[in-house]
């Protein structure tokens, strides 16, 4: 299949700390097609950001990819070396982050940081790169771009900074844009604008987007496919419709119950009981079992296998196996 852009297989990323190994991303496998928008959803600590950092290999110490493969257009990235990754980062795959307040270097002008990215991956000279920066800022909807390039990050509002971040990310027209909670730190009104901007840029530039978020609303508005993560593992994946209307994992069901729905005001919000697992001492069985209302003895005893529900939909939950056994 030549339309497959990114193929992640059995990715294993660990943080080796004094008190043990934290398997932050465990047996992660997924694919991303050209121009597709994929959502990765999960609560904080579920390994979604670690997965993204692993793709770009910008993990902070002591994080390390300990196994698996990441292939971009068939080119293996794991253990490919710094020089290869430098040419991929910001060029083929770029990334925007959660907090635009701290993600831009405060001591350099916005223009400086933009031209830096442009000159790094293209043959443009400084003057041309400057022009391109202004052009990019205009593209992401920043008014008076000529004045803005000369300003420092602290002179811009949060929304504008995130727009500048996006401008920086799309500077080299990447194949993939990874957005790590791009709207979490922003005001609600600004959130919608940023999402709108990303959507239109995706259409204009034809790039694929990996949207990492804990907000199912964002997923619904942006993505075609969704991966649900819990405690470092993918627990369910499918199309947006499948996940939202026929969730096959108890955790996904819990997530959906915990978000407010505009269409059905009578529905009560049900939070998921308990707290996220301690990643240093994961339970033997399903990591969600201790918080799961439907947990069975087997859930505590062993990891559930991934069961295929449809061509596009799969989940790792013993409930599915139970259903299959009962039907058999």
């Amino acid at each position, binding site marked *: 299949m030549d339309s497959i852009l990114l193929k992640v297989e059995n990715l294993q990323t660990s943080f080796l700390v004094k008190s043990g190994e934290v398997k932050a991303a465990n047996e992660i496998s997924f694919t991303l097609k050209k121009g597709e928008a994929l959502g990765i959803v999960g609560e904080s600590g579920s390994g979604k950001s670690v997965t993204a950092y692993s793709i770009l290999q*910008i993990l902070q110490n002591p994080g390390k990819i300990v196994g698996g493969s990441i292939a971009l257009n068939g080119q293996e990235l794991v253990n490919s070396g710094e020089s290869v990754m430098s040419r991929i980062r*910001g060029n083929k795959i770029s990334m925007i982050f959660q907090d635009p307040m*701290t993600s831009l270097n405060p001591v350099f002008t916005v223009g400086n940081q933009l031209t830096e990215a442009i000159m*790094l991956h293209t043959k443009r000279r400084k003057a041309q790169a400057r022009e391109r920066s202004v052009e990019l800022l205009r593209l992401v909807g920043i008014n008076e771009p000529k004045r803005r390039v000369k300003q420092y990050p*602290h002179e811009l509002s949060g929304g504008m900074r995130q727009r500048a971040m996006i401008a920086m990310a799309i500077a080299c027209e990447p194949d993939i844009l990874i957005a790590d909670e791009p709207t979490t730190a922003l005001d609600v009104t600004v959130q919608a604008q940023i999402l709108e901007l990303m959507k239109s840029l995706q259409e204009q530039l034809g790039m694929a987007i990996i949207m990492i978020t804990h907000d199912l609303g964002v997923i619904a508005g942006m993505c075609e496919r969704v991966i649900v993560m819990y405690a470092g593992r993918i627990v369910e994946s499918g199309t947006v419709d499948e996940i939202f209307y026929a969730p096959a994992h108890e955790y996904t069901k819990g997530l959906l119950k915990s978000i407010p729905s505009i269409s059905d005001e009578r529905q009560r919000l049900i939070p998921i009981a308990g707290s996220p697992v301690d990643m240093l001492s994961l339970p033997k069985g399903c990591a969600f079992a201790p918080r799961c209302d439907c947990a069975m003895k087997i859930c505590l005893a062993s990891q559930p296998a991934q069961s295929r529900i449809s061509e596009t939909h799969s989940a790792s939950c013993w409930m599915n196996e139970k259903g299959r056994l009962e039907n058999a």
Partner: protein
Amino acid sequence: MDTKMLAYIAKRLLFSVFTLFLIVTITFFLMHAIPSSPFIGGKALTPTVMKQLEMKFGLDKPLGEQYIIYLKNTARLDFGMSTFHKGRKVIDLITITFKVSAKIGLIAAAIALASGILLGSLAALKKDTIVDRLIIVLTTALVSLPNFLVAIMMLWVFSVMLHWLPPRAGAPGGLVMPIVSLALYPAAYVTRLMRSSVLDVLTQDYIRTASAKGLSTSKVLLKHAVKNAIIPIITYAGPMIAYITTGSFVVEQIFSIGGLGNFFVRAIQNSDYTMIMGSTIYLSIVMLSMTLLCDILYKVVDKRIDFS
């Protein structure tokens, strides 16, 4: 924005002036409490000096009035005549000797800052390697070593044993040892500060952004980390230069340098109270203005960093 900055500068300036006023007041009353001080009329004062002091400070007048006269004189940097160096004005002695101290001090400060920033960045970049450990061991040792000991040890090794460097500052190459002994402690301190500052900066989000852009590790460090990491050093630079000036008390004596530090120590030993008072106030002014300058500079740079 700029009015805020001006208000900050005004506030800090006022605060410094108040501190200086406090120092001047402490000095005045301490000198009046000293039994053998010229103000009480102790021993070994020639009648001419006594008369001069009486005229200058009106020693027959009530204490409050004397204090006012003293404040007025101090505001004009008029500290009277030295009671030891006969016929010399204190302020003249100070300005002549301070030039000598300032020259050595500034060279030492520049060396300390440059080497500290360099070594500190190096240690941070090579964290947990042998280079880093070596730098940590070295700086830990150096911050435990008073500068007069460094001076003495250098004197012993390089002058007495090896005959490489002259023991007195007057001879050619004679400034090497005093400058090094003044620079070592602050250099070690700046190194440690810079190391932790770089390590702190490296965890910042914008560093992740820079590497996500595709910048090479070395470029990320050189462009995005070091510049930001230097900022906290600014606040230390003021007190550090002050430290070097005070530290020079002993070092100048050991190497026979005719600087203010040496004169100050000799004034103490000779009970030259007008010189002690004058030097204290003069050095306080130097230190307070250095600190003030660096604080303002930091605030100007920090405006970009301060997100709140």
